[in-house]
């Protein structure tokens, strides 16, 4: 009962923080797709680049988020604003699943389909856009889904460097030993993650071409 009252009383602040959270994650995901999908395509075209690209993304993935925020703080343009810094960090975390799923999605296309496409005189670009990417979309979306859920969680730590978001409540609650405050951040964050997961999951199933 207490918690419900708390949510109602603070609904404006919670809504504000949630929108900010969505903004941070949304921009980071757009950037991650814009960078990760082309990198994933490059990996399929030049296998020798697969180690450095996937390795780099893998390393980014292993850096603890708080430490990554710390590393990025002295970087000139980024350190100026907390949200810039957080968006770049979240983008780095989101890259690995997107790059990996893009290359896996393209590489798992039936060799006969690719051979037929080439043999019928499709250009490299036509094969990429009309065949490879189209068939890889569900797999790429699965990567975006994993990355989104991951970054929604990590974004709560953004409050530590003052970028706001739902982490604000969690940090304040921890400092004040107030469970209601912690839940005011944790519950919407979990709900966001579940919502993103189901929407992207639905999209992924809709776009999967029927198979035997």
């Amino acid at each position, binding site marked *: 009962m207490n918690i419900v009252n708390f949510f109602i009383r603070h609904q404006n602040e919670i809504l504000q923080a949630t929108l900010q959270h969505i903004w941070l994650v949304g921009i980071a995901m757009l950037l991650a797709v814009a960078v990760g999908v082309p990198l994933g395509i490059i990996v399929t075209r030049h296998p020798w680049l697969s180690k450095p690209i996937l390795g780099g993304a893998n390393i980014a993935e292993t850096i603890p988020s708080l430490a990554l925020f710390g590393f990025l703080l002295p970087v000139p343009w980024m350190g100026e604003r907390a949200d810039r810094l957080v968006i770049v960090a979240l983008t780095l975390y989101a890259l690995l699943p997107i790059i990996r799923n893009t290359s896996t999605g393209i590489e798992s296309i039936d060799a*006969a389909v690719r051979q*037929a496409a*080439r*043999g*019928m005189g499709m250009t490299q670009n036509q094969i990429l856009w009309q065949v490879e990417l189209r*068939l890889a979309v569900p797999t790429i979306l699965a990567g975006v889904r994993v990355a989104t859920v991951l970054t929604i969680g990590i974004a709560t730590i953004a409050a530590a460097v003052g970028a706001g978001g739902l982490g604000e409540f969690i940090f304040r609650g921890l400092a004040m030993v107030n469970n209601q405050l912690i839940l005011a951040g944790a519950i919407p964050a979990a709900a966001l993650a579940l919502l993103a997961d189901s929407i992207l999951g639905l999209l992924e199933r809709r776009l999967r071409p029927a198979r035997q």
Partner: protein
Amino acid sequence: MTPETDRALPRESIIEFQNVSYRLPNGQTILRDLTFTVGRGETLALLGRSGAGKTTALKMINRMLDPSEGNVLVESKATVSWNAIALRRHIGYVIQDVGLFPHFTIEQNISLVPRLERWPAERTRARVKELLDLVDLNFDKFAERYPHQLSGGQRQRVGIARALAADPPILLMDEPFGALDPLTRGELQKEFQELQRRLGKTIVMVTHDVGESLLLATHIALLEDGKLTGIYSPPEFLAAKEPMAAAYVANFRMYEEAERANEHR
């Protein structure tokens, strides 16, 4: 056509291999010094064991591969001087695993090359209808379906229709009926024979099926270890003394003998 009349008529060569060799980057030789011609309207079967280089030779005709040495001429022009995309759209291509696009309907699959060539929508649609007719599939029933909803034989029919879409003068077929069950294969081979008679395409097909070669080909080229052992008309092939050809014929006759043996049981 007997060999005599064949030689008497001036034969317009559509595909010509001139001392063609192909080596892999690691130096392994796949084809050595291949020389032969395919005339307009002829069907050449490339026959040989797996790994003899049949598919490699086929892929050189539509520039999926370029020769390491020698020249492949298509319509008297070296393939390396052709624009690869233009060359491929000029040549129909059918492969064993068909390779239909799983995210395209049957109509979209068949109309791919016409769409790439920017045919008007009406002409494309009429062509798809005509082609489905040609391979004996009902337009209203199949046009909107997806490849996974078709049987193996139906898929290969669509594969053939797709290859014929822009009416290419040349057709390449890589074991087109190899993945089908024997009954379906027989039906398709028979229908294809009829189709070939009507369309008069120049065809090169890869096969290791002697029966298929005898049924569909005007010439049989025997490949062994990347080398051409000989080119025969079907009657010449059946009478050939060359050991490899004779072995194929003996293998083929094995079934006839089994049939005769069972008649007397």
